[in-house]
Each structure stands twice: as structure tokens, then as C-alpha cells.
């Protein structure tokens, strides 16, 4: 081989990883933080960390879970560094609302999206891991460091809260019409 076949293989592996997972990582990041630009930053940080630690990835099948873990930690680290104040949270909420106000992003699920963003993180995070990441309760429990039963309760309540929010909004709309 002409030059450094190890680097070559490593780069190829990384490129495959990026192409296979960047889209779903972005979705996960978006629903974790609620901001498009911040989500992209999180994905970038995640993938840069993945590149640095690529040797730690032993099996291709484990890549997805590994990347999700890095992203969750990056998100937590971000909030350790910058703890959003009330004003910033307002801005964040406005940004999210503006994003969904875009006609291309509007749809029948807008209410569900709003309800999702309004969920407290302790309910939203396991639900995202399950719906977007395909994690089982046991896997979520292992990742979050809690018991599987606690995860089941969080997931149950997350769905209940979403349904309640949709139901309330539906009643409000009927009341207005």
C-alpha cells in the first residue's frame, strides 16, 4: 500500500459511521435540546469525539449505541457549562416555535411536537431513546443508571402526559370553535 493503510481504514470506517448515523443523531440531539443549530453542534462534537476514540469501537453493531451515549454525555456537558437562564429558555422556546411555524414543518403533528418539547427531561429522554433509538427498557436503564422498573414508569408517564396534553388542546380547540 502506498501510505499508512491504518489511517486509511480508520478514515473509511469513520466516514461510513457518519453517513449511517448523522441523520438520526441529529434527530435525537434536536429533541434533546430543542434547537436546530445547537443540535448540529452537538452532532459535530459527538462525531469528533467518536473519531478520536474510534479504536474503542470493537463491533460495528455497537456503533449506534456508542454514538448515542457520546451524544447524551455531550448534551449533559453542554448544560454543565451553560446552564440556560429563564431568558435563554424563553429564547429557546421561541426558536422552537419559529421552527415549527415554518410552513414546511407544520403539519397535523405540531401539537404532539409541542407536547414533546414541554415534557420534563426525565420523561423526554427515555422516550426519545426508545422511539428514536429503539432501545429496550433494560438498555435505557443501563444507559441512564436507573432500574428498569423506574424506566418503565417514566415511559408510561411520558406517554400519559403526551396524551393528556393532546386531549387538553383538543378540548380547548373545541371550546373555541
Amino acid at each position: 500500500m502506498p501510505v499508512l493503510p491504518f489511517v486509511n481504514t480508520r478514515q473509511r470506517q469513520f466516514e461510513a459511521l457518519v453517513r449511517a448515523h448523522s441523520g438520526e443523531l441529529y434527530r435525537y440531539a434536536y429533541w434533546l435540546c430543542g434547537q436546530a443549530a445547537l443540535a448540529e453542534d452537538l452532532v459535530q462534537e459527538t462525531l469528533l469525539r467518536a473519531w478520536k476514540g474510534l479504536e474503542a469501537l470493537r463491533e460495528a453493531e455497537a456503533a449506534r449505541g456508542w454514538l448515542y451515549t457520546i451524544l447524551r454525555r455531550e448534551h449533559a456537558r453542554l448544560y454543565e457549562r451553560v446552564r440556560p437562564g429563564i431568558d435563554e429558555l424563553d429564547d429557546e422556546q421561541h426558536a422552537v416555535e419559529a421552527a415549527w411555524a415554518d410552513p414546511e414543518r407544520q403539519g397535523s403533528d405540531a401539537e404532539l411536537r409541542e407536547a414533546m418539547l414541554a415534557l420534563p427531561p426525565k420523561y423526554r429522554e427515555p422516550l426519545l431513546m426508545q422511539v428514536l433509538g429503539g432501545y429496550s427498557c433494560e438498555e435505557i436503564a443501563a444507559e441512564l443508571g436507573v432500574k428498569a422498573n423506574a424506566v418503565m414508569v417514566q415511559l408510561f408517564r411520558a406517554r400519559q402526559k403526551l396524551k393528556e396534553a393532546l386531549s387538553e388542546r383538543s378540548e380547548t380547540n373545541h371550546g373555541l370553535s
Partner: protein
Amino acid sequence: MDCLEFRRQLGAEPGRRDAAFLAHRDACPACAAACARAQQFERRLAGALAVAPPARLAERMLLAQATAERTARRTYLQRGLALAASAGGAFVLGRFLGPRDDDDESLRALAVAHLPGEAFALGLKQPIAVSAIEQGFLNRGIRLAASPPPDVTYVHDCPVGPYRTVHLVMQRDGLPVTVIYVVGHRNRAHDRFERAGWHGTVVPLRAGTLVAMAANPELLAGAVRDWRLSLDGPAASGHLA
């Protein structure tokens, strides 16, 4: 499993497929109806969460990684050189790390020596946009006369020794072909070489010089032909290098 346990599991994990769960669903019409409603909600939820990622996200991520890698490598080299200089060992370092043949300063030696520093580029497989390639040349003050080859996967305006160059990689027959176009330095004659496992050709082209390198020498003529067409335009590129 009773109805209470079924509903508890359904609320937490509607996608469950274990035998006890499915058996109860099949045996209890009320729970089967609840399961159908839950599945419907899950489909709606999955659809609502399916945010479209930004356009060309993967390419942007790969570019960020390539840039970070380049910066890290440069810092590493600078530290190494500073250390060598402070120890009075720059000469020794140069002899061991640099090109070792008699023509250390020749363009071909510098071109080959440039490759390990950007070895990651050899592994890139996705063709990049024509606009990115054109911009790479524009950064060096060159406007292409015709479209670039469609299989370019990397472009960067690199310094190679004292030369200002555009560094490109193409993928041909599953192998990388590296092209380094040297701006403002025109070699007097064509040249062929074999060095460090690379076959190469050096061709005067327009007001500069094109150096093409590949592990397989049969890939070089096509690469030179394509870049002659891009740089000179169809009218001027009637013959091969």
C-alpha cells in the same frame, strides 16, 4: 399475564413482542383494541419526531473532522519542530522524516512527502460538489475552463514545500488517485517517477504543473487527460500528456 400487567407494559413499551405479552393480546379483545390504539399513537409519535436533518449534514461533519485533524496534525508538527530546533536537532529530524533521496527539493519528492500528512483524504469515497472544486481552484486564482472530473472526493488548497497548490483526490477503479496542481510553477518537461510505493507523472499544464500519483500507474493517463480538459478546456486539450 393479566389485563393490568398487560396495560402497564403496553404503556411503557408498546413495541413488546415477548410471548406472554402477545398471548394475552390475542386472548383479550379489550386489550387487543388498546394495543391497536397504542400502535397508532406510536406511529404518530414516530412521525412527529422525524425531523429532517439539515442538507448535506454528513458532508459538513466530515469536513469538520478533516479540518480538526489537519489542525491537530499541524500543531503536532509545529511542536515537534520547535522541540527539534531547541535541541539543535532540526537537521537530524529533517534527514529522518523528510524525503531522503538526492532530489529532496524536487517537486515530485515534495508531492510524495505531502501525502502522509493528508492520508485521510485517500479514504474519502463520496464525490464532492463541482462548486467546491471550482472554489478550491479559485482560492488559488484559477478559473477552470471546463467541468472538473465527476469523481473528485477531496479538494484543498495546500502549501507543498514552497509551492502553492490545489490538492485533489479522485477514486478510480476503487483506488485513490491524487492530483496536486502547482500554481505558478511550470516544469520544463514531462516527468515520470516511482517513489515510496507511488507511481507518478509530472506534466506542465497551463501556467502551472500537474502532479498525478496512484498505486496503479495505469490510472495516471486518464487523470491527466481529465484535468487537462478541465484546466485548458476542450479546444486546447486535444492530445495526451
